[in-house]
């Protein structure tokens, strides 16, 4: 699914990311790496293999779209340091030629040094042309178009007989909210409002509601 914002083309991908075509940049929100391990360290047995899927999907996205850069929209790492960071660091070294920028989210409490060690540029927000990238949605986005995460938007499709909750992209007039990228992240139900387009992700497809 492709949309146009401020004369730039953006691809909404079923892997829960956006590809900014004109800049060969992947936008990825809310990975929450380390969450599974954090649970496991506290004695809650979430399957440990699950987080590998995050890396596989990122790898797939880079190769398939020929991406040269990633902007992470915050909440990359769930909480305090644990072994999952090292897996991420290894993955990063494998794709060292890719430029990575992170705009920090409320969960990102790791020391900056860890990011810098693996060549990730740390920012509170990032502006480029007439776009702003940051973690928290803005209440009143103005001139520049905003890309953000934080909310983990899902949309509930309801018919007379059934309802299904699906992750979605929220595309408002001045702001886009990305679905959470991480395997082990929940969702917050979003409603349709005026001027808002919602794109749901159903298995391998992105569909407009």
């Amino acid at each position, binding site marked *: 699914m492709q949309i146009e914002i401020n004369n730039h083309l953006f691809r909404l991908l079923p892997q829960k990311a956006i590809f900014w075509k004109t800049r060969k940049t992947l936008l990825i929100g809310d990975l929450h790496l380390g969450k*599974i*391990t*954090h*649970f*496991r*360290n*506290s*004695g*809650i*047995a*979430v*399957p*440990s*293999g*699950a987080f590998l*899927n995050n890396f596989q999907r990122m790898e797939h996205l880079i190769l398939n779209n020929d991406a040269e850069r990633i902007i992470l929209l915050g909440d990359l790492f*769930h*909480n305090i340091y*644990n*072994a999952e960071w090292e897996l991420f660091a290894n993955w990063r070294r494998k794709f060292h030629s890719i430029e990575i920028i992170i705009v920090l989210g409320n969960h990102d409490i790791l020391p900056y040094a860890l990011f810098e060690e693996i060549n990730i540029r740390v920012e509170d927000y990032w502006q480029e042309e007439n776009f702003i990238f940051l973690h928290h949605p803005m209440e009143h986005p103005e001139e520049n178009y905003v890309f953000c995460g934080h909310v983990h938007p899902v949309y509930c*499709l*309801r*018919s*007379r*007989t*059934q309802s*299904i909750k*699906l992750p979605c992209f929220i595309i408002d007039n001045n702001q886009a909210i990305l679905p959470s990228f991480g*395997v*082990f*992240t*929940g969702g917050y139900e979003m409603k349709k409002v005026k001027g808002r387009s919602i794109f*749901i992700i*159903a*298995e*391998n*497809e992105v*569909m407009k*509601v």
Partner: protein
Amino acid sequence: MEFQQTPGYKILQKWLRSRKWKPAPFQLETMDAFLSGKSGLLNAPTGSGKTYALWFPVLVNYINTTKEFKTKPPKGLQILWITPLRALAKDLQRNMQQACDAMEIPWQVGIRTGDSNTKDKASQKKQMPQALIITPESLHILFSQKNSSEIFNSLHTIVIDEWHELIGSKRGVQTELALSRLRTINPGLRTWGISATIGNLEQAKTILLGNEQNKNSITIIAKSTKKIVVETLLPEKIESLPWSGYLGIRLLKEVVDIVKKSRSTLLFTNTRWQSETWYQAIIEHYPEFAGIAALHHGSLDKDLRAWVEESLHNEKLKLVVCTSSLDLGVDFRPVETVIQIGSPKSISRFVQRAGRSGHQPGAVSKIYFTPTNSLELIEAVSFRKGIENNILEDREPFINAYDVLAQWMVTLAVGEGFDEKSLFEEVKNTNSFKMIIRKDWEWMLGYITTGSSSLIAYDEFKKVEIENGRFVVKDRKIAMRHRLSMGTIVSDSALTVKFQHGKYLGSIEESFVSRLKPGDVFWFAGMSVEFIRIREMAVTVRKAPPGKKGVIPQWMGGRMSLSSNLSQFIRDRLSESIDHPGKEIEIKKLQPLLQLQSSRSAVPRSDELLIEQFEARDGHHIFIFPFEGRLVHEGMSALLAYRLTQLFPITFSIAMNDYGFELLSDQYVNIREIVKTSNIFTTDNLLNDIHASVNATEMAKRKFREIASIAGLIFQGFPGRQVKARQLQASSSLLFDVIFEYEKDNLFVRQAFQEVLYYQLEEVRLRKALTRINSQKLLIKEIDKPSPLSFPILVDRLREQLTSEKLNVRIQKMLIDYSDAD
């Protein structure tokens, strides 16, 4: 009997004589069996003196075996008395202590439940009383203490009260596991159960005693002389009863007339919503009841409920409108009358409620049945027949409750730790886990130690550790978190409701609250309240200004499904109504309706299965009436729809009630021809077809919530410190998705699917029903107007759709639907 010559019995007899009590035959029989060293099961109703039947022989035995029984009481716990209900503990304790004091036995009878205060707990830790009344949950907590086997060293007797209440639940599994442990600590342990009448009494005994002890055991049945009379409240004219409906408010006047005539009444309803509605209607139409009527249901605050129970006890209330929350428990001596609104769907439940009245010896228990729709009159007759023939439902024990087992293993590891080989044998001795295989056991060990299916650790997962071959929990934080989340009763994700000044009223479901705006008025706990705000799982309200009316909240898990025993009776009563229309008053009243049924369609006989076909503007309807209850119909309708979709391309929408179900489609299905060529009711391939027909994954996901909580995958947070645990919170459906996707051999996911199959779709009953249908004649009727039997299903708005389409296609269609709706 020989024991009557012993010194202990003489002392007992002296006390009994002073109170002019004469032991009942069943009490003597129980004493005799107990004193000859037997274990067993006592089947006796509430209020019959069942407690004393087992408490007396314990005391007699003590006197007989202790020389200086007045001065040198034994140290340590002698007897455990398990009760399912905290509220029962106080009454029990009073009665048991009283007997000790009167017989000059210096024993202490203590209580240990979730309500016990820290002071009592601390003094019990120092010195256990001789007898301890305890809930299954609190018993498990004792096992999480470091000195647990010391506590139980001197234990020689264990009594499980109200076993029928525990056996069909996961608390029953908890009890089984604890019993097995106690028998390892003390092989000579005597075990006695007390149970009300249930269908599978012998099985209940075997489960409780275990195979070894069961060999030399006895079942004692107290002959009940109490008679139960069922009277149906009948409207003047049958036409004033609706064809469908679950409320029954049209008989308000008739009900209140009966309430007025008696000193005290319990008005049983089947759902919390129904109880609130009835209470509101009574207060509105008969304001004189304000102050002498009260409401009691499971979502009301426990202090509020305790107040109602106490007031009822003290005869301060004339009427209590209640739900199953008052099914068991406290002996309400003063209750004179019991009224049941709507069918409770099970004979046992009906009998239990009837038993709440007429506790005086020799008194008659009378229950007034108030039908909420005309067809329930058949159920009224069926209840009466069931009671006459003493037919009661089975309570099926839980099998393979891995979640409870996981919790138990961690509990023991928090306590003294365990050796896995001997614990495996011990666990296999229980009924719930007699089939567990070594491979699954090893999975469980992996789950609690490495958080994976193997015992090899490759990350920092920490819960249970292995130290010198023993499985132990060393991390204090983990131990504390486990103690806080023990238990098998998982509360729904409810919000608490409170007044501004802080008084709690009860709990309410989030889905209801999310629709409220500040200033909205709703009816809760029998009063009209105004919504102020919601903050951190608490809803603040104030009393609404007079005259403002509001809606009544719905709670989930409302309707019960018809029990198999009752459904058999209903089929027979219908059949009987053809040949003996005037035999029972209710059937006689129902004649106009039954005649309409037979003129528009037919009334099925016992050996017939009625199928109605009917075309309307919304499509082609097929109604099938197996009379097996909604749960079985849920599975059977999906199964049939699936099998028909295999024959030719078609989509069905499905609706059901307790009597039958409906398949609705936009094309005509020639049932008459289809059943000639293919057996759509076959039991061949049943499991595969069920899996293909129902959305088992969605259903399992819903079951998973409880399982994940019990197994320790969901941490509810520390009381009063919610924020701190936020990093560890994940919804059960998210957990289910991740585990389902990434851990194929997970036992808890498997358990969720099994629970769906056995407890929700009632696979065993479904199979039996299909077998029966295969021996029945099919009575196929084309009708032009809905019959009285099909009408209630036709108007039911809860519908499900059977589709074999892929998710993407489904969503495409929903998107189209959705844009149509806009």
